[in-house]
């Protein structure tokens, strides 16, 4: 029974996209995550390496200068200091020196590589020390300050201050960053495309199946279309077996339903036989009376209407039975008399159970709704209601036009419909046939008929204590 109610689809992150897009998107998302992580690692390694290289180069520059400068600083010889700075300028490729200033022990400038900017003898304000030169580039700085104290025979005689343009390092870092971004973007795009192509190929069998399923009627995949690869072939074979099983189940269900209908009719027929038999005794007596005393006008006048009524009763029972047996093929407009037939058909059953039926038909002229299918559906509902209602209980029936629809309601005093059955009845579509006879099969028929004639089913709690099943039949939907 659980299978009757289709489980709701779980909410998805990418709800409406087909698999062929979802997989590439997931691939792209994962690639972006991976490349962000990898790039971050690569860049921080690059930063460390670049910073180390820069510090080493800076140290090499300062170490190279220091011994040459120290004696000149001791002598406070501006020319020699300048000459050393000037000659070393081109020696350190990769170190973009903006300015190198050499100060004496008093902090005054002895000479600078650009003497115009920093004249000899001027006071030099040393920039604050940068503790971590290796991280300068990563921090987005464009200028680094290096400092080295000049030692001569154990005492500090001055200092070298170098201002270095690390813009090129930053540019190099930016190039690496963009290379990473572009490279990863290309790889991501390529993998996503690959994912798209691969998934498109992979889901092709599924698409074939879904196309067949979407067509409404499940059709097996013909042998000519069987693919070469074993996996898909197994899927198709499985699908074909499923289609075959569904077909056989459908056939079985129809046979069961027919049997059920015949059984119900048989049950009704026995009741009707009783109905026919009841007047038969009276009729026979009346005939006997006519035969014996038919000469008397008074007797004839009393007996013939009695005979007529009895025969009419029998005729009505027979007609009703025939009409019911004609079944769902009868698409005449529904007349109150059709509903009256149902009441007659149901009467013996009710009598047997000592049940009463509140009957209300709110129209007189035939309405443009198909009589045959509705009679069948209502008969099923009424029989179900009678079965559900305990001995001596009450049933309700009403047929009232409501706007452009006919509202047919059947109520009982039974235990009510289970939530599953209620959901099954009210769900749209033909639904899956239950593989069980009994009331479920009746409900399946009701739902099938409602589906065929475009009617809607509502299930509610009846004031009588049991279930109320309402068929709302659009009047345009007669098909007649």
């Amino acid at each position, binding site marked *: 029974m659980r299978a009757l109610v289709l489980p709701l689809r779980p909410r998805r992150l990418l709800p409406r996209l087909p698999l062929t897009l979802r997989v590439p998107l997931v691939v792209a998302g994962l690639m972006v995550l991976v490349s962000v992580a990898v790039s971050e690692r690569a860049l921080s390694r690059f930063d460390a390496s670049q910073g180390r290289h820069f510090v080493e180069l800076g140290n090499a520059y300062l170490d190279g200068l220091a011994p040459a400068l120290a004696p000149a600083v001791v002598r406070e010889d501006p*020319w020699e200091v300048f000459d050393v700075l*000037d000659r070393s300028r081109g020696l350190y490729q990769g170190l973009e020196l903006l300015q190198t200033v050499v100060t004496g022990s008093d902090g005054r400038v002895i000479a600078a590589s650009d*003497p115009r900017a920093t004249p000899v003898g001027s006071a030099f304000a040393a920039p604050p020390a940068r503790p971590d030169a290796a991280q300068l580039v990563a921090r987005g700085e464009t200028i680094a300050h290096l400092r080295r104290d000049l030692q001569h025979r154990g005492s500090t005689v001055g200092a070298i201050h170098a201002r270095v343009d690390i813009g090129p390092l930053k540019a190099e870092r930016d190039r690496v960053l963009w290379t990473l971004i572009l490279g990863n973007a290309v790889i991501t795009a390529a993998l996503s495309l690959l994912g798209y192509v691969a998934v498109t190929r992979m889901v092709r069998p599924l698409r074939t199946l879904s196309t067949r399923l979407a067509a409404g009627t499940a059709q097996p995949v013909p042998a000519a279309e069987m693919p070469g690869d074993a996996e898909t072939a197994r899927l198709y074979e499985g699908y074909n077996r499923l289609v075959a099983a569904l077909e056989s189940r459908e056939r079985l269900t129809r046979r069961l339903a027919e049997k059920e209908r015949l059984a119900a009719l048989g049950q009704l027929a026995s009741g009707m036989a009783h109905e026919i038999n009841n007047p038969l005794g009276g009729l026979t007596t009346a005939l006997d009376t006519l035969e014996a005393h038919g000469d008397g006008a008074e007797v004839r006048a009393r007996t013939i209407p009695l005979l007529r009524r009895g025969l009419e009763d029998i005729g009505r029972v027979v007609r009703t039975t025939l009409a019911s047996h004609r079944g769902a093929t009868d698409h005449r407009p529904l007349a109150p008399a059709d509903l009256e037939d149902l009441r007659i058909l149901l009467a013996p059953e009710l009598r047997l159970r000592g049940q009463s039926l509140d009957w209300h038909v709110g129209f007189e002229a035939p309405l443009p709704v198909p009589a045959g299918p509705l009679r069948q559906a209502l008969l099923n509902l009424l029989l179900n209601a009678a079965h559900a209602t305990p001995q001596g209980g009450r049933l309700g029936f009403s047929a009232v036009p409501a706007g452009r629809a006919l509202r047919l309601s059947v109520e009982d005093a039974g235990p009510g419909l289970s939530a599953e059955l209620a959901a099954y009845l009210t769900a749209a579509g033909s639904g899956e046939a239950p593989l069980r006879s009994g009331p479920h099969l009746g409900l399946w028929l009701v739902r099938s008929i409602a589906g065929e004639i475009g009617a809607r089913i509502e299930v509610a709690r009846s004031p009588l204590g049991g279930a109320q099943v309402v068929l709302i039949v659009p009047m345009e939907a007669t098909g007649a």
Partner: protein
Amino acid sequence: MARHRGATRRQALVTLAGAAGLAMPALAQQRPFLLALTPVLMTSDLDLLGLLRGYLSAALGLPVQLATRRSYQDVTVLVLGGKVDAAWVCGYPYVMHRDLLEVVAVPLWRGAPLYEAYLIVERGAAARDWSDLEGDMHAFSDPDSNSGYLVTAALLAQQGRRVESFFRGTMFTYEHRNVVRAVASGLAQSGSVDGYIWEVMAETEPDLAEATRVLRRSEPLGFPPVVVNPGMADPGRSAALRGALLSMAADPAGRALLAELRLDGFTEVPGGHFDSIAARATLLRQL
């Protein structure tokens, strides 16, 4: 010691040659001719030194060694001490030791054994006169240089000023070319430089020379001479050197060397040729 050893070896060789009775040229087997050079020339130019050594070797018939020293004083000490056969020195050290040194020959520049001392400033500097240089950082070439120190110091002395107080600071670059570099770079705002060197640089390194401007030219002064110490030098060698220098312009290799030096040749000069330098030296000594 070196000289002692050298002399001993020479005596031994002479003895050997005499004993063998060989008629080989007497100088051929002797010690090399030593010539000391101050940075009065473009000493950084090794090609130039090669040409000079090549010419002198051929002209003297001797291997020639060139001794370059950083300061004029070092060179002066070498020649005064007889450690070299001859030296190419500035006029200032010569006049300071005129009693001990003898001029062998003086180069001819632009037809005369004369040159000028320049006061240079940065090209864009506003200075119009030497007095505008007060408070400058000033670059000298060498404390023993005529054009690179003496002329400027004497100029100030004539006005009753002293180098130390007139300028904010001074520096010695020990090479005339470096004076030009110091001024061109802005390290010094003005400099005292050899006019001959500046003119040659204007031709060979115009970018550097033209970053400076000549503010003042001195009157013509005696060009740095080649000198010997007659008290210690071999007269024969000195005479040979004089001959080699005076005949340089007549020799193709000599002319190539002169062309490199932008000189016309060498000449002998009368005794008073360096008197104006001597007068400046005296003035400065009296200060």
